[in-house]
């Protein structure tokens, strides 16, 4: 590229980056403004006086502590389920020779393609029948063994030499021991990717917990935030709502900055989020 074009390119890119981050800046700035200040000057870019009152109000009067705990519990079930159930399935599909393997792999691929909107009504009916409506388990279970995770582990497992597993077999190690002691440690990067992906999926999930959670005691953070914003008393209380938005987004953004590689691999490698 010629010398004149390069500064122009940088300038354009930095401008685009600023535009991209604008919504984050609005969110942070709004969350630090008091209700009175937002009412008197709704469009101001920066707070006149910084206040953390919105954040304390969230946890003291709006039940966000509970929503946060619920979100964490659901995410833990989802992540644990994916690490165990999806890894085991991915391992079997790549490394074990058995009758019905093609059928099982076909099911995984088909499951990745079924749009959520096509099944959530019947998923909900089943959840009610299982007695899991309005429970954290009911929210977590559909995501606890994502076909995407199975696929990621399977693809990674294909690159692990069979000889390593075979050597353990000859030494008399049982299949479960081989899976836990040899395969899982070797599959570290794939396990890291599915951990991140399933956490992100669970943390940001909105429509399913919205359908399943029917009382504040089972609201996850996104559902709680949406409910808070729909409560008539808070229609113009943007400071409170934006503080909630920051609380919902912050954990994921921090994780993203720390573990970017896995996010990009997981999402771009499969095109799913």
């Amino acid at each position, binding site marked *: 590229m010629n010398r004149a074009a390069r500064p122009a390119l940088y300038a354009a890119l930095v401008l685009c980056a600023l535009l991209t981050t604008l*919504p984050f800046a609005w969110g942070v700035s709004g969350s630090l403004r008091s209700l009175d200040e937002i009412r008197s000057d709704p469009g101001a870019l920066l707070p006149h006086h910084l206040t953390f009152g919105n954040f304390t109000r969230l946890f003291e009067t709006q039940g966000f502590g509970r929503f946060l705990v619920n979100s964490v519990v659901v995410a833990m079930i989802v992540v644990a389920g994916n690490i165990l159930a999806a890894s085991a399935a991915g391992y079997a599909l790549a490394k074990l020779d058995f009758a019905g393997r093609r059928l099982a792999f076909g099911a995984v*691929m088909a*499951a990745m393609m079924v749009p959520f909107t096509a099944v959530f009504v*019947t*998923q909900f009916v089943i959840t009610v029948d299982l007695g899991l409506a309005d429970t954290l388990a009911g929210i977590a279970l559909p995501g606890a063994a994502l076909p995407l995770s199975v696929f990621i582990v399977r693809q990674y497992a294909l690159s692990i030499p069979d000889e390593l597993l075979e050597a353990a077999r000859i030494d008399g190690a049982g299949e479960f021991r081989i899976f836990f002691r040899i395969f899982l440690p070797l599959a570290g990067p794939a396990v890291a990717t599915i951990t991140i992906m399933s956490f992100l999926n669970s943390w940001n999930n909105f429509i399913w917990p919205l359908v399943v959670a029917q009382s504040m005691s089972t609201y996850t953070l996104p559902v709680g935030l949406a409910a808070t914003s729909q409560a008539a008393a808070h229609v113009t209380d943007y400071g409170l709502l934006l503080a909630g938005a920051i609380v919902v987004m912050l954990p994921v953004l921090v994780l993203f900055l720390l573990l970017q590689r896995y996010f990009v691999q997981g999402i771009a490698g499969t095109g799913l989020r």
Partner: protein
Amino acid sequence: MTTTLAPATKRATAVPRTAAPKASRARRTAVAWLFLAPFGLVFLVYTAIPTVAALALSLTDIRGADLRTPFAVDFTGADNYLRLFQDDTFVRDILNTALFVAVGVPLTMGVGFVLALALNSGISRLRGVLRTVFFAPVVTNVVAVALIWQYAFHADGTVNKLLGAVGFAGPNWLDDPHLAMPVVILLGVWRNFGIAMVLFLAGLQAVPRDVYEAAALDGASRWRQLRHITLPLLLPTTLMVSVLLTVFYLQVFDEPYLLTGGGPLGSTESVALYTYRQFGAGEFGMSSAASFVTLALVTVVSVVQFRLLRSRT
């Protein structure tokens, strides 16, 4: 996918067969299905059965009140589907969804492509930081971001304040039936262009450098290199990204539900929102039928676009 499957299948089957007789294969099959069981259970309960059941429900007159007595409902054949297409709001929602796809997909891809080109043009400083910034919206929570959007786009919000500073009187974006949709689409584009960018970056990095060097030696301008080398070589990536985004946007729910609730005057209501509204009204049969229309559209789009890909390459 199939290309990686074939050699692996061979390798995995070859090793145990030399080492073990028949009885051991039966044992191995049992062990393998044990490994698959937890996933298989979730798959059966939450994907396989719901899909078949949704198809069945869409052919009945089931309503929320019938849940306790599921066998008392009547089989009504294609009635729900006929009712859907006679329902003006459903037709309107199909058109809204089509608009979302027709504008959102090219816009998301365009932004992603241009940024990928810029990041791949040999700059080294700030490259990582810029990529991080452009990808960050992908991991954001849509409920949170929608609130920020409402705050910024309401009548006295930050966007109109900025517009006012340069002499425009900003409208009430989300309450205007003509302006609400562009704002909803903008939110979709903002949250998804990072995916397109990363996929295009991967595609661009797979193009060998010496192709460009040879073209430059022959005197091809940068524009001609882009048109005659980059774009043709990126065709598979382009089709992949377009299928992906089309499938996303055909199912669009979160953005309109949270920003506008489908309003004003239904101008932003998508098919997924219609499905949800029917579900909320207890019309499970109608809701399932609407969701199968989405499933059909998603399938058709995937098949057509992959056919296109195969005929072009």
